[in-house]
């Protein structure tokens, strides 16, 4: 474990939170902590990435908990996750205050409409990028399609879908089935 001071840890994760706008956030954290600062090795980083995607909850805070814990123990985990969330929270609260407080004028409304549309384009691209790597397992395409249809089109309860479709997927991918493709790790280099 590298000796990283708490102050540096705070500044680093606050900076990660501030500069990770849009996609490729885990790739950005990898680049900052592993490639540029060498706080930990690729072999130490990748399990954290897998874990943060495997466990429920937003990915970046999960990854911050793992990395903070790795670098400075429990206190490091708390500091990292708070540092990564707080700057953005302040920003969104200012925006929420303006949005709900002053109301939205017609100009801002038109601008927001355009932003919302671009977000949809952005989400499409992200989903396709991640989907290309993730849809390789046994029955993966069907599991993906079934999930999309039940949650997206039929608007079924997501908890129920995760339970049923996830169970089915786990059974299809249970240990001991031959010729399993190697597990993916988030499409990092």
């Amino acid at each position, binding site marked *: 474990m590298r000796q990283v001071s708490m102050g540096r840890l705070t500044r680093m994760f606050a900076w990660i*939170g501030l*500069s990770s*706008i*849009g*996609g490729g*956030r885990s790739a950005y954290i990898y680049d900052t902590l592993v490639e540029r600062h060498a706080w930990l090795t690729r072999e130490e980083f990748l*399990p954290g990435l897998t*874990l*943060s*995607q495997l466990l*429920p*909850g*937003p990915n970046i*805070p*999960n990854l911050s*908990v793992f990395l903070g814990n790795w670098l400075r123990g429990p206190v490091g*985990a708390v500091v990292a996750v708070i540092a990564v*969330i707080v700057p*953005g*929270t302040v920003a*969104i*609260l200012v*925006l*929420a205050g303006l*949005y*709900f407080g002053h109301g*939205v004028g017609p100009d801002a409304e*038109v*601008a927001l409409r355009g*932003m*919302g*549309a*671009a977000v*949809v*384009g*952005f*989400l*499409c691209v992200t989903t396709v990028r991640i989907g290309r790597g*993730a*849809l390789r*397992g*046994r*029955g993966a*395409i069907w599991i*993906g399609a*079934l*999930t999309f249809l039940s*949650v*997206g089109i039929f608007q079924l*309860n*997501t*908890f129920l879908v*995760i339970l049923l*479709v*996830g169970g089915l997927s786990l059974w299809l*991918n*249970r240990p001991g089935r031959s010729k*399993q*493709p190697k*597990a993916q790790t988030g499409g990092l280099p």
Partner: protein
Amino acid sequence: MTVILTLAWTFVRLSFLCVGGGLGVVPEMQRQVVGIHGWLTARQFVDGYALAQVTPGPGMLVSAFIGYRVYGLLGAFIAMTAMFLPTSLLTWIVSRHWQRLQGHPWALAAERALAPLAVGLMAAGVYTVGRSALADLPTTILAAAAAIILAKRWLPAAAVVLAAGFVSYLLGAMIP
């Protein structure tokens, strides 16, 4: 007081449905926040989500936006804590044992099993946001243009989203 508890419980449940990231939980979030509790309109939900995307930090910051609407700053604090604290605790507990667990056959099986589920949930998230955000031809064209620019990696995502807002504003000024 009841609304605070409802808010907290709703976001705790939503946080545990974030499989493979925040986007996957958007359909259920809209179902709860707009449909069941009526805290926001569908339009406000999409606006909040768009604002959370151009704000630095995790996309799930939209929780603060929703919480603020429901009960001011306290509501935002409750929603954020409910969204981030329980799952962070779980991650912390598991990460202490992860070195031993990560090679386990069932851990690998879960990893393989959840990947397509997460993609399906993400696609459902895109569909949910798209249904509210793409109201007419201009917004659809903007979304397609944004997708092309981002697929070609010409510009970073936040720049594209902000630029789309500006373009939309200009078009609105030209076509009253």
